């Protein structure tokens, strides 16, 4: 409709039935305005359904599993041997394997990620930032299977030069590479928290004669502390859930050990191992995937909630 005709047609409609008063009634309630909110809500509801799906699936299958294997035995058993008799489902070896990988990964990722974040947020000129940040983003986007290849074909041979007694599959190599994988995450989340610290606080400290290091460590890091802790917790959770690197490089021998030079198995690698074989539905082995998956889900879920709580609860007001 072109501009000039619009007032004319409106005037015609308005004047005929109600004299000189305007009518503010909507001639046609648009269909889109009634239907769209509902459709959009349904889209959002998919995410709730996903969560419900995850929880219900894990619960029902795990329930069947725990009727065969008492939950106490599952949680405290020190031997995981689902294939070779005597069959035994004690999750501690898988948990310890996962923990070993996670601890190694965090020892690598948290200091390096945090130091990079401090450098990028407090020291680096913007030209360096413009180059380094996309590189870190690319590093974060490298598929985990590629990291697995990297661990197996480059990192492990290098480590075996230092530790000749180490096997081809070992926790150290996988843990280091998982750590490298999560460096970008620690770095970018910590940097976000640091750049949220207002400029004026830094100026206040510089004006008292602080060096850059003192501003970074005594003003910026304490002020951004909650965000930094949250990034560390998320990194921990991410390392626990990492699958392909450990499947490829850490081996498939569940054992209770703290020796990083040995081959171990994580919860995630076990799940992959079972699903590679064609396990019949309803078997104990099939059920064990869900029991292990449930354990994994609960741990990472709690850690993620913790991270959000830390980030919110201890947020500094500037």
């Amino acid at each position: 409709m072109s501009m000039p005709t619009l007032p004319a047609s409106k005037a015609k409609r308005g004047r005929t039935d109600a004299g000189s008063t305007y009518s503010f009634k909507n001639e046609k309630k648009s269909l889109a305005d009634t239907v769209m909110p509902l459709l959009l809500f349904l889209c959002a509801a998919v995410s709730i359904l996903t969560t419900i799906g995850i929880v219900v699936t894990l619960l029902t299958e795990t329930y069947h599993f725990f009727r065969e294997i008492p939950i106490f035995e599952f949680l405290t058993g020190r031997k995981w041997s689902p294939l070779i008799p005597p069959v035994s489902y004690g999750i501690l070896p898988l948990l310890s394997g996962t923990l070993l990988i996670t601890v190694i990964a965090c020892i690598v990722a948290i200091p390096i990620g945090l130091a990079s974040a401090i450098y990028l947020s407090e020291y680096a000129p913007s030209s360096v930032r413009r180059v380094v940040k996309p590189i870190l983003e690319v590093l974060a986007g490298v598929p985990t299977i590629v990291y697995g290849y990297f661990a197996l074909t480059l990192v492990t041979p290098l480590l075996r030069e230092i530790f000749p007694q180490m096997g081809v599959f070992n926790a150290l190599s996988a843990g280091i590479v998982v750590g490298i994988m999560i460096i970008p995450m620690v770095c970018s989340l910590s940097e976000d928290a640091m750049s949220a610290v207002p400029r004026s606080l830094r100026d206040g400290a510089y004006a008292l004669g602080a060096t850059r290091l003192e501003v970074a460590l005594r003003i910026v890091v304490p002020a951004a502390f909650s965000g930094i802790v949250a990034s560390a917790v998320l990194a921990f959770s991410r390392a626990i859930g990492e699958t392909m690197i450990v499947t490829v490089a850490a081996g498939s021998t569940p054992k209770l050990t703290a020796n990083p030079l040995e081959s171990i198995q994580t919860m995630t690698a076990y799940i992959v191992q079972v699903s590679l074989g064609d396990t019949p539905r309803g078997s104990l082995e099939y059920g064990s995937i869900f029991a292990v998956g449930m354990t994994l889900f609960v741990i990472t879920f709690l850690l993620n909630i913790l991270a959000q709580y830390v980030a919110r609860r201890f947020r500094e007001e500037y």
Partner: protein
Amino acid sequence: MGVLQDANRKQIAGRRRLDFALHLLFVAATSVGVVVLMALLVDILIDGASRLQPDLFNQYPSRRASQAGMKSAIVGSLYMLVIMAPLSFVLGVGAAIYLEEYAPKNRLTRLIQLNISTLAGVPSIVYGILGLAIFVRAMQLDRSLLAGALTMTLLVLPIIIVSSQEAIRAVPRSRREASFALGANKWQTVARAVLPSAFPGILTGVILAMSRAIGETAPLVMIGAMTYVAFLPNDLLDSFTVMPIQIYNWIARPQAEFRELAAAGIVVLLAVLLLMNFAAILLRNKYNKKV
């Protein structure tokens, strides 16, 4: 005279040395990421260079390394992308619009929001378990292309929702008000004033989510995309394989020839991902300039 001299020079010199030393340490830490990325790329290129030949793209997987290629895997990844992209785009952007523009500020909304950020942190293999139980078994889609694509859609949804929400939130309030002031209704305002402004940002997020899905292995191993696929899938219920799974398959073999194949496959996969990332960065830069 002397105004600036009476301070404790030694103490300050010590602090400056510490600042300098730590500065170097921070630079070193930052370069770890850069160096590793270089090492990784060089390692893979050296290993895979000899196998980067037409056969890699023309041949189906084979027991014999000399004849193996990843044709079915490349096509499988492509098909999965084609099914997943529109589905996750509609669902993800729809949810983001609902949460940003329509959702009342109540408990349910907060719950959905919390739920989405929590889902983003769920390990990908758990989505594989979900896909296995729901799509493969309960819905009896079997180990099919459709089951894989649906599983991956659920996996990337939280990522798309969060990034789309950010893009929508970045549209200035004044633009909405201008539209309302001209007599537009809610949906008209959303569709014609908000979404066009937010679109580049949304698209960037969707591309990044897709590149995440292309590289994802674990959930598809779970739902059994592992089968040895020497044909191209014809319909949605055919079995399939994708690039990362083919690569995993080759890595898992002890022979050196298969390692080379794996490296060549990784080069192809990384090239695809870098292209997608590059597109996303271009879009974002364009978007940032326009504000």
